[in-house]
């Protein structure tokens, strides 16, 4: 029991080190023989804690919202009473049909929070998605860092990048219903940068590009896709 509490304390201190970009925490992870396993456990536990916090917050929101059917009926009656809607339906009857279809959606058409049972799956999937994200980001960063002259083993990169999940401790704020999460992505990227610097002992610029390469390529692909879509739309018009 004491050993378990000790490991949990160590994990919490490491996560906090990741959150505060403490280079010492990253060095400890890099040099620890059990760094990879400990990193995986850390990512899964942070994911689980955030999922649980989000579920509790969502339950709070659910308890302060009206019944979905009552909400839908009131909204339907209110919109149908609007002169603008009546004029539009008179001009375009298809609009009325589309409106009826939209209002036949369950759960207020996604406008209201889902119930505690329906959102329970999110708690179970949160650590799985967190681990998946860690594997993908860690692997891409490792390949890029090695290409830029880094020398760390795969396990060392993964052990250090796991600390970036410490940034997600900020998302625990979701335990408060209606709270908005921010800063986790940018802080996670900064922590990943420190992880690459400490694990691969790379200078600032190669470390920067090792972290920025993946997001830059994704942004580039998104920009090309958006431009292609825009040209398609313009040509159709």
């Amino acid at each position, binding site marked *: 029991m004491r050993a378990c509490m000790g490991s949990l304390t160590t994990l919490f201190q490491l996560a906090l080190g990741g959150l505060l970009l403490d280079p010492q925490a990253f060095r400890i992870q890099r040099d620890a023989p059990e760094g990879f396993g400990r990193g995986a456990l850390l990512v899964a536990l942070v994911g689980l804690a955030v999922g649980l916090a989000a579920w509790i917050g969502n339950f709070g*929101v659910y308890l*302060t919202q*009206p019944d979905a059917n*009552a909400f839908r009926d*009131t909204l339907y009656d209110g919109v149908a009473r609007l*002169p603008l809607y009546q004029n539009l339906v008179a001009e375009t009857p298809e609009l009325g049909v589309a409106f009826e279809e939209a209002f036949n959606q369950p759960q207020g058409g996604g406008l209201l929070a889902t119930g505690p049972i329906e959102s329970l799956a999110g708690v179970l999937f949160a650590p799985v998605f967190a681990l998946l994200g860690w594997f993908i980001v860690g692997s891409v960063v490792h390949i890029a860092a090695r290409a830029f002259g880094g020398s760390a083993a795969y396990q060392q990169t993964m052990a250090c990048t796991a600390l970036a999940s410490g940034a997600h401790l900020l998302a625990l704020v979701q335990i408060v*219903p209606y709270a908005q999460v*921010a800063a986790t992505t940018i802080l996670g990227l900064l922590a990943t940068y420190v992880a690459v610097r400490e694990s691969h002992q790379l200078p600032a610029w190669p470390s920067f590009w090792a972290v920025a390469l993946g997001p830059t390529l994704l942004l580039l692909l998104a920009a090309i896709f958006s431009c292609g879509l825009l040209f398609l739309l*313009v040509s159709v018009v």
Partner: protein
Amino acid sequence: MIEMFNGALTLNRNMMLGLREAPDGVRRGFLLILLVGLLVGAVQGFNTMIQTATPERTVQNWRRELDSQVSQFVLTSNSPATADITRVINENKEPFFTMLEELLSLPTPLPRPASLLFQLLATTVSRPLSYLSGMLLAAAAAHVIARQFGGQGTIQQMVALGSLSVAPHALDALAVVPIMGGTFTTIAWVWGLVVLIIATSIAHNLDAGKAAMAVLFIPLLLIVAGLFSLCMLLALLVAAVGG
């Protein structure tokens, strides 16, 4: 913490140099953001709670806001299109606000004060994160350019010192003051920018001119790129409509 807060507001160089060398600089910087964010969030949360205490008061505020927007819209243009839009808004606003009041009055499992309390807490705890997010983006962008200019600071030093730029945003708590609120927010923003420039200069051992360039370069680049994209989009749309 109060010493650090005062030091940030008065651009105290010695305090900033001390923070740069402190091994727990990031922790102290984040604590400052937490302090300022909680203060501003709590004030704004209470203000929102008072304004939305009852469904009638919530809708009354929205009605007042819409009326003010419509008046400004009418003042800026007197074209037939403006008259049409104003007529549609006036025809629909009362049924729309009645619907909103009915939606807000629907019974909920927990009483309305619970929802108001949750929203007060949410505004209070979300504000530090929104400040942190803005500061991290600004500090990371400034760090990248400062390194190009020969700066030698680490990202930890930049984040720790950049956190000081949030201190003037304590003035955002006065944003709830009628008429003067916007002025306080603007002063806080400009003061924060000055603190960030000084912080960048100290974190990277750069002169103030280079530090200012480091802080402003990426935002200016983004503004120029945004304007260019907008012009391109407009040109494309005009070409498509014309051709």
